[in-house]
C-alpha cells in the first residue's frame, strides 16, 4: 500500500485532507513535547490519551463547528483544558461532569415530556436513542431527528479518522 496520502485526497478542502494536516501538526507537536524514551505504562497511557485528544480535537476543528457534535466536543475539550489549568484535575473533572449531568438531566426531562406527547410507536427507540446520545458527543441536547443526522456525519468523520490514522501508522512502521 502506498504510504502517500496525496493521490487519494486531491481535493484540498475535503474533510480528509483537512483532518490529515491538522492531525499531523498535532502529532509533531506531541512528539516534540516529550522525549520518546519514556516507557512506563502510565506515561504511555498519557500519551495515548493525548493522541486521542489530539485526534478528536483536530477532527472537530476540521469540521469547524458546522455540526452540533463538533461544537460539543470542542466545548468539552476547552472546558476541560481551562478547568485543568484553573484548579486541580479532580475538581475540574467533577465540575465538568456535573455540568454535563445537569444538562443531561434537563434534556432528559425535556425528552420525557416530548415522548409523552409523541405517538406510541416511537417509545421503543428511547432506550437506543439514549445510548446513541451518550456515544455521539453533544447528543444529549438533540431530538431524535437531528440526532440521526449528527450520527451520520459523525460516522463519516470517524471513518475518515480511522483511515488517516491507519495510513499514518503504516507509514510510520515502514
Amino acid at each position: 500500500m502506498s504510504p502517500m496520502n496525496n493521490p487519494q485526497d486531491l481535493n484540498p478542502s475535503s474533510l480528509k485532507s483537512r483532518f490529515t494536516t491538522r492531525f499531523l501538526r498535532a502529532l509533531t507537536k506531541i512528539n516534540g513535547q516529550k522525549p520518546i524514551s519514556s516507557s512506563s505504562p502510565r506515561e504511555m497511557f498519557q500519551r495515548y490519551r493525548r493522541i486521542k485528544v489530539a485526534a478528536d480535537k483536530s477532527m472537530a476543528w476540521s469540521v469547524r463547528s458546522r455540526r452540533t457534535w463538533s461544537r460539543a466536543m470542542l466545548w468539552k475539550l476547552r472546558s476541560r483544558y481551562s478547568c485543568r489549568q484553573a484548579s486541580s484535575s479532580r475538581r475540574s473533572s467533577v465540575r465538568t461532569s456535573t455540568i454535563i449531568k445537569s444538562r443531561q438531566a434537563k434534556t432528559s426531562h425535556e425528552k420525557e415530556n416530548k415522548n409523552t406527547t409523541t405517538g406510541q410507536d416511537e417509545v421503543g427507540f428511547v432506550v437506543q436513542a439514549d445510548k446513541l446520545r451518550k456515544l455521539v458527543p453533544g447528543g444529549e441536547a438533540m431530538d431524535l431527528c437531528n440526532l440521526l443526522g449528527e450520527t451520520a456525519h459523525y460516522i463519516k468523520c470517524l471513518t475518515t479518522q480511522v483511515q488517516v490514522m491507519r495510513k499514518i501508522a503504516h507509514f510510520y512502521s515502514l
Partner: protein
Amino acid sequence: MQPCSREMQAMNSLLNPTQQIPLQDLQSNGNSNAHQQIQNPQFDPTSPHDDFLEQMLSTLPSCSWSDLKSPWDPPKSDETGPPNPDNNVGFHYDEILASKLRQHQINGGGGSSSAAAAMKMMMQQQMMLEGRATAAAGAGGGGGFTMPLSLGSGAAGSHQNDNIVDGSSFKSPNHQGGDGSVQALCNSFGAGSLHGTNQSSNQFQHFHHPQGGNMQAQNFGVTAGTVMNQSQASGSTTGGTPAQPKQRVRARRGQATDPHSIAERLRRERIAERMKALQELVPNANKTDKASMLDEIIDYVKFLQLQVKGGGDCIQTSANGKQTSSPNDSLTVTEHQVAKLMEEDMGSAMQYLQGKGLCLMPISLATAISTATCHSRNPMINNANPNNGNSNHLLLQSSGEGPSSPSMSVLTVQSATVGNGAIDGSVKDATSVSKP
C-alpha cells in the same frame, strides 16, 4: 323542499334590513370584503339549530336566491347561468354555510334534516357552479369538507342529489354533465390530495390546500370515493346512511387533530430519511426493523470509536518505539488494550480487535491451522492467561472482515482471503497479561 322555501322567505323578511347591506357591500367590492364577510362575527358558531338555519338563510344575497331556487324546483330546470360577480360571493357564503353545516352535522343535528339537506343541495350546486374562485382559500377547506358530506348525506337527500346534479348541469359552462361534474369533483379531490398545491386553475383545487395535510386530502379522496359511488348509483338510499357515519368520523379526525398529526407525520418522515441515510453508511444494513437498525448503528459507532483509539495506539507505538519497534510491541500494546477492554465489556473488546483486523480463536484450533498453513503464512499467536487462569490460547489473526458479532469460540479466520496479507510469524510463550 317547500317548507324550506317558506322558511327562507320568512327569515329573509325578518333579517333583511340588518344583513342585506353588508351583502350588497360584498357584491360590490368583491373578494376582500368577502373575506371580511367570512370573518364577520355575525356567524355565531355555537348557535343552536334554528338560529343556524336563520343565519344561513339570512346571509345569502337576495338577488342570488332566484338562481338558487331553480334547482329546487325540478320541473322548472332553468337555464339561467349564475351571475359571475356572484360567484365569489356565493362561494364564500357556501363555505360559511358549509362550515356551519359541518358543525351542525357534527353536533348531530337531525331535526331539520330536510332543511339542512336542502341547504346542502344549494351549497353543492353553488360549488359546482363556481368558476375559478381562488379567493376564499381559508374557508375552502370547510367547504370541501362538507362537500362529500352533503353529497352523501342521508336518505332524504339521495333523490334530491340527482335533481341537483341534473339541475346544475345546465348551470355552469364548466360542467361536463351532472355525473361528470361529480366525477370531476371526485377526481380533483384525488388529484389534489396527491399534489396539495393550488397551482392550476382547477376549480376544485382550492378545496385542498387549506389546513394542509395529506390526511385531510386523503379523507377527501376516501369520502369522495364513497360519495361517487352513491351519486352514481342513483336512488340508492341504502348506500347513504351506512357511509355517512364513516364520513363523519373521518372528517372529524382529520379536522380535529390536523396540525399535530401533520407535524407528527413530517417528523416521522424526516426520521425515516435519516435512518435510510444511516443505513447506507453502516455496513450491516440488512435489517428492516428500526429498533435493530438503531442497535446496529450504536454498535458501529462504538466500533469506530474503538478503532480510532486503536489507531492512535498504533501511531503511538510506531512513532514512539521506532527504534525498538517490533511486531511484539504492537502486539503487547494490543494485548493490553484488549485485556483492559475485556474487563469492562466483551463486545467492545471484540470490536477493538476486529477494528485492528484481528479476531479471537481457541488455541487448539489456532495451532492446528498454523501447522497446516505454516509454510505459506505464519499466523501470530499470542498466548494470554485470561481471568480464570486456563491455558486457553488466544490467537490474534488478521481477517478481512468488518464488525460482526463476537464469540470466543468462533473462528473467523480466512487465511486464504486475508486482505492485509502481511502477517508476521512469531510464536510467543505463555505470557500473563497484566491488567492495570
